[in-house]
């Protein structure tokens, strides 16, 4: 797997090696009774293919945002940096279609004028010409507006990133002083102060300071008590900047001169991946973020009657109880196709206790390390019969999206489609030609943990879930990252009108429906459960 920053791992004893599946003693256990293909024990699913645990249960339903509570879809095309809403793109496409159509219409009128004894049609032709011109002018103006917006956003982010690099280096120096003086709470306050101030939480700094005296639990209580802070797009922007400037911060915290850290950052050879690998190197020295071998077992198998259609149905099939769901599509005379659904983080405990979809996998995954969740997913894929030439589509939510992106980026698999929701995967370099989209809510800081979007092979779709912040739930620390929040965005994507979004959705749908519509086709879903072997799970 290629380090996502495009840079080789620094030759430091702190940086863990990039593991390969199986290298750490990973195992695939025999399937549970009824889960093997030979057992024949699994009957048809009766048409219900949606896992019953998908985060949209009764407790969440009350707080589930609806698509009309959110903002427009903001879309960035693959291979480009142009940013425009789905509505703007649709308006441009409509204006272009009208201009072209009326151009042809005017030519038909000119031909009509040549019919013997036709009524005079010059005025009619002129009216149609004028309408075509107006459509062309509107199309041009809309395109120019999009270009200006894109340019303004690019310049704003460039300035912001440069500022955050300096902020990171200076904050790191302050944190280093705090840590060396034994004032860990003060150091944490220095790290968190920037995002909170950016999110309008200046008045809450005394409260944060008091909460930090209660350690991590105190911080957790503070964050749950103020969900509007973590969900503020400005907080998300600062998290993105901090992730990008973290290695400057780590450098200066360790005593590196600020100027040297900035020069190192300016070379472009550092970034979130380097920071994450550093954390994975340092963490185990204090008993945190430790990697371990994983065991993977097939625990379920069922026949499925129909493929997922649309983003909302794909998200609904991402598992919660087990970590990986693989759907195998067969059709007579054709090679099987597969869809791999990958679960989100199941525990944020920094000391892994049997769960490979943990914080260590989150951090290490951003660092380009083949962490437990990635290795577990790849082992499940092999067990399901997926080979290096099998066509695979990957779908993941949160950490599952990061895993899906990493697997798609790995040259060992033939990934043709990818859909991620709220994934910290913007720094994963994907292959050319991959279809699908990366979906992010603007209130969600989790994708920002991978720093700025550096890969441009996949359609990017962003959306504000709560256009009116007062509608945001107050009992969740990160409402924008909840599955129900992404379900609302997925519904908005399924209702999108622009050609670009619809084309990518159609490509993902077509991958499975092409087989499902053939006579004699079958769909079999396998569920996998993974544990860290040296843990308690």
């Amino acid at each position: 797997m290629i380090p996502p920053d495009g840079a080789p791992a620094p030759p430091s004893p702190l940086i863990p090696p990039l593991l390969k599946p199986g290298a750490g003693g990973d195992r695939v256990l025999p399937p549970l009774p009824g889960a093997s293909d030979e057992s024949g024990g699994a009957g048809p699913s009766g048409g219900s293919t949606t896992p019953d645990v998908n985060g949209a249960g009764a407790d969440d339903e009350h707080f589930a945002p609806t698509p009309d509570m959110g903002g427009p879809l903001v879309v960035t095309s693959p291979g480009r940096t142009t940013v425009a809403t789905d509505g703007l793109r649709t308006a441009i496409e409509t204006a272009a279609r009208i201009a072209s159509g009326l151009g042809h219409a005017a030519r038909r009128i000119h031909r009509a004028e040549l019919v013997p004894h036709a009524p005079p049609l010059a005025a009619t032709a002129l009216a149609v010409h004028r309408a075509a011109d107006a459509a062309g002018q509107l199309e041009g103006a809309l395109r120019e507006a999009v270009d200006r917006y894109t340019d303004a956003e690019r310049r704003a982010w460039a300035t912001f990133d440069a500022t955050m690099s300096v902020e990171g280096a200076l904050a790191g120096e302050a944190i280093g002083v705090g840590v060396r003086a034994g004032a860990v709470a003060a150091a944490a306050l220095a790290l968190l102060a920037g995002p909170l101030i950016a999110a309008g939480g200046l008045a809450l700094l005394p409260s944060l300071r008091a909460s930090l005296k209660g350690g991590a639990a105190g911080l957790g209580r503070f964050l749950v008590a103020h969900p509007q802070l973590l969900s503020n797009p400005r907080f998300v922007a600062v998290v993105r900047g901090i992730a990008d400037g973290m290695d400057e911060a780590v450098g200066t915290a360790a005593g590196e001169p600020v100027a040297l850290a900035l020069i190192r950052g300016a070379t472009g050879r550092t970034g979130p991946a380097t920071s994450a690998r550093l954390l994975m190197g340092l963490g185990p020295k204090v008993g945190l973020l430790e990697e371990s071998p994983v065991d993977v077992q097939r625990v379920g198998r069922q026949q499925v009657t129909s493929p997922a259609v649309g983003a909302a149905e794909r998200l609904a099939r991402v598992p919660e109880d087990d970590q990986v769901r693989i759907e195998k599509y067969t059709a007579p005379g054709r090679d099987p196709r597969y869809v791999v659904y990958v679960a989100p983080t199941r525990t944020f405990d920094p000391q892994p206790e049997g769960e490979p979809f943990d914080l260590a996998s989150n951090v290490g995954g951003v660092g380009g390390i083949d962490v437990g969740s990635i290795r577990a997913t790849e082992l499940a894929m092999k067990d399901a019969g997926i080979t290096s030439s099998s066509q695979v589509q990957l779908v993941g939510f949160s950490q599952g999206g990061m895993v899906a992106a990493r697997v798609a980026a790995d040259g060992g698999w033939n990934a043709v489609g990818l859909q991620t929701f709220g994934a910290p995967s913007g720094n994963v370099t994907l292959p050319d030609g991959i279809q699908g989209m990366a979906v992010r809510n603007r209130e969600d800081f989790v994708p920002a943990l991978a720093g700025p979007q550096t890969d441009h092979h996949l359609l990017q779709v962003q959306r504000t879930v709560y256009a009116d912040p007062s509608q945001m739930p107050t009992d969740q620390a990160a409402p924008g990252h909840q599955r129900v929040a992404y379900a609302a965005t997925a519904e908005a994507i399924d209702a999108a009108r622009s050609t670009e979004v619809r084309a990518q959705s159609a490509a993902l749908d077509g991958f499975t429906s092409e087989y499902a519509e053939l006579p004699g086709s079958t769909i079999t879903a396998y569920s996998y459960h993974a544990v860290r072997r040296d843990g308690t799970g």
Partner: protein
Amino acid sequence: MIPPSDGALDAAGRAELLRLLVPVADELHDALHDPPTVSPGDWLGPASEACGRLETELRIRLLHAATAVDEALASVRGLS
């Protein structure tokens, strides 16, 4: 109002005119039914006002063109 033709239009000529003009009318009515529309949520920044004017201008011109083509069709259908 379409001025009268300079002579009698035969059935073949009328059919040819209808073949050419009916799709034009359809095109215009489709455009009027689903014109390019930018909602307030679609950020346009400083270009917002100019684009709004062009959007309105397009609707007016589509309406004029549709009216002109409808009149031309009525004229053709009324000729013998």
